[in-house]
């Protein structure tokens, strides 16, 4: 890989060097603020670089195309917002919050490699870097017993499922002789009767991917880990780790049209329907906000797989659109929760949010818009996303899928409404006043969240820009 091409991988280089630099910086005992700002600088610089460079480039392990760049932009933007909100969250809770940012950058590095990989080795590399960072991040707040338990659980099950993933990859490699997505797809399509080895290979690969995306048969871990980890880390899992795995699925099955072969499409169909229904049903009677968001993420992964299934009519564009809108909504929600959290405990039970509208109307409006967007109500971007999925689904005559989507989103309405109702019920003000500690960062958080909410509403009413942007990006 000649040095000239190395420049193409600049985004990865920036993140990794940034991580190392911050590690070195820690030695000088800088204040928490300085570490956070430098981490933000790394993200910003990386984001600018990604958005500026334009020409496409494919190499053995990596392919830098519009699709990858878009997802990388998403991952970096979410990483940046997470660093923003984690300052206030960790400032008074943790004795040395500074190491958090290093882990965050490493995690993002893993996700970035996933974004641009189209080869098994780079897939494995990215995935494991991401997972390693996650193990430590989940167990970050050591003194809280939940975190360590969640970290342990995640570690063992992640390792367990990556073993499945590897075994699957090995089988596929054994059958097709190559580890490159396009070649694999080409070979599998050429075989009339797909060989059993290959099918089991894809099946095992799906197990590994299914665990990472917490779709139905492998969703059991999601709720516990979401609840155990601290809020910025939960945001990181929900967005960056799932985003990374999603793009792999889109590349492996979507771009290569592999999803159209019968065994894989029926498997995905069952997984999609099951996760849509189970995700929403689980969340119906749940009162812990983090667990509700975990179950709703199961359901949303179901919607995304449904979008992937109707790949015929620009399903990929629908999937990317829905993912980005979903992430924006999640970021807004997690941002508000982290602002509400106190020293002793996270703001994850419904009572923390009760009557919020009458004390802090701004935060409550953000939550309402985020919830409405997740529920897919017009006036918010969520509706456009859901509308696109319905459109793609109806175009490819996936009636069963569409009806389950309608039924599931009706169930979904119920628990999103439960949160919105809690906002508006009369409830005495119990949450202590924490804004005075460091007003500047609260204002910064507020501005970031407001931008997110405004973008949710703006895309809801004038979605043309975002649709055009995604179309142009996916072209080259």
């Amino acid at each position: 890989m000649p040095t000239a091409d190395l420049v193409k991988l600049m985004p990865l280089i920036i993140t990794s060097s940034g991580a190392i630099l911050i590690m070195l910086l820690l030695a000088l005992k800088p204040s928490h603020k300085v570490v956070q700002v430098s981490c933000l600088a790394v993200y910003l610089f990386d984001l600018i670089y990604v958005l500026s460079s334009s020409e496409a480039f494919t190499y053995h392990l990596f392919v830098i195309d519009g699709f990858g760049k878009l997802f990388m932009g998403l991952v970096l933007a979410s990483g940046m917002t997470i660093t923003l909100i984690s300052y206030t969250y960790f400032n008074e809770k943790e004795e040395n919050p500074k190491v958090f940012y290093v882990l965050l950058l490493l995690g993002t590095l893993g996700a970035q490699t996933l974004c641009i990989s189209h080869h098994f080795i780079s897939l494995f590399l990215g995935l494991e870097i991401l997972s390693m960072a996650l193990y430590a991040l989940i167990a970050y707040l050591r003194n809280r017993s939940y975190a360590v338990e969640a970290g342990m659980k995640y570690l063992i099950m992640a390792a367990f499922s990556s073993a499945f993933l590897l075994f699957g990859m090995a089988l596929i490699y054994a059958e097709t002789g190559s580890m490159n997505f396009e070649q694999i797809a080409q070979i599998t399509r050429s075989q009339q009767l797909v060989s059993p080895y290959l099918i089991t290979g894809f099946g095992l690969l799906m197990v590994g991917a299914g665990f990472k995306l917490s779709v139905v048969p492998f969703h059991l871990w999601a709720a516990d880990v979401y609840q155990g980890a601290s809020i910025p880390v939960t945001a990181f899992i929900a967005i960056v780790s799932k985003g990374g795995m999603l793009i792999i699925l889109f590349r492996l099955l979507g771009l290569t049209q592999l999803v159209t072969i019968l065994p894989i499409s029926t498997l995905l169909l069952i997984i999609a329907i099951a996760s849509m229904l189970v995700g929403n049903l689980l969340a119906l009677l749940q009162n812990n906000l983090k667990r509700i968001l975990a179950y709703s993420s199961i359901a949303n992964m179901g919607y995304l797989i449904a979008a992937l299934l109707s790949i015929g009519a620009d399903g990929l564009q629908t999937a990317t659109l829905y993912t980005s809108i979903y992430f924006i909504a999640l970021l807004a929600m997690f941002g508000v929760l982290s602002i509400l959290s106190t020293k002793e405990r996270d703001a994850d039970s419904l009572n923390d949010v009760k009557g919020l509208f009458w004390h802090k109307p701004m935060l409550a409006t953000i939550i309402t818009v985020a919830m409405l967007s997740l529920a897919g109500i017009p006036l918010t971007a969520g509706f456009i996303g859901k509308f696109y999925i319905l459109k793609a689904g109806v175009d490819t005559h996936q009636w069963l899928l569409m009806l389950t989507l309608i039924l599931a989103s009706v169930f979904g309405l119920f628990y999103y409404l439960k949160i919105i109702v809690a906002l508006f019920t009369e409830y005495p003000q119990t949450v202590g006043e924490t804004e005075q500690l460091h007003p500047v960062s609260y204002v910064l958080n507020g501005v970031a969240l407001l931008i997110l909410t405004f973008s949710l509403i703006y895309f809801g009413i004038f979605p043309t820009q975002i649709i055009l942007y995604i179309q142009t990006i996916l072209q080259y």
Partner: protein
Amino acid sequence: MISNLSSDYVFLLAAILFALGAMGVVIRRNILFMLIAVEIMLNSAGLAFIAAGAKWAQADGQIMFLFILSMAAAEVSVGLALIMQIFHQHKTLDVDELEQLRGDRK
């Protein structure tokens, strides 16, 4: 270069190893042994890769195995750190103690 026929046997061995590892994770209650079982599974996946690489006479399989080894090592180290922390807090390594996080009771 081992012939095609023999590579099937190696896959069989890898599969058996994989199944044993999986059983190990499910049966054992001590976290340490679960970690070991996961290691077995990772190695069996590595074995499968080497067999596949041999079948196509390419070096990719072995390179992949190297990555798997390094990943397994890193993962175990983080695992052991976490086990230390659990032992510090819960005074036990029994996995069934670790069930404060649960969804079936309000």
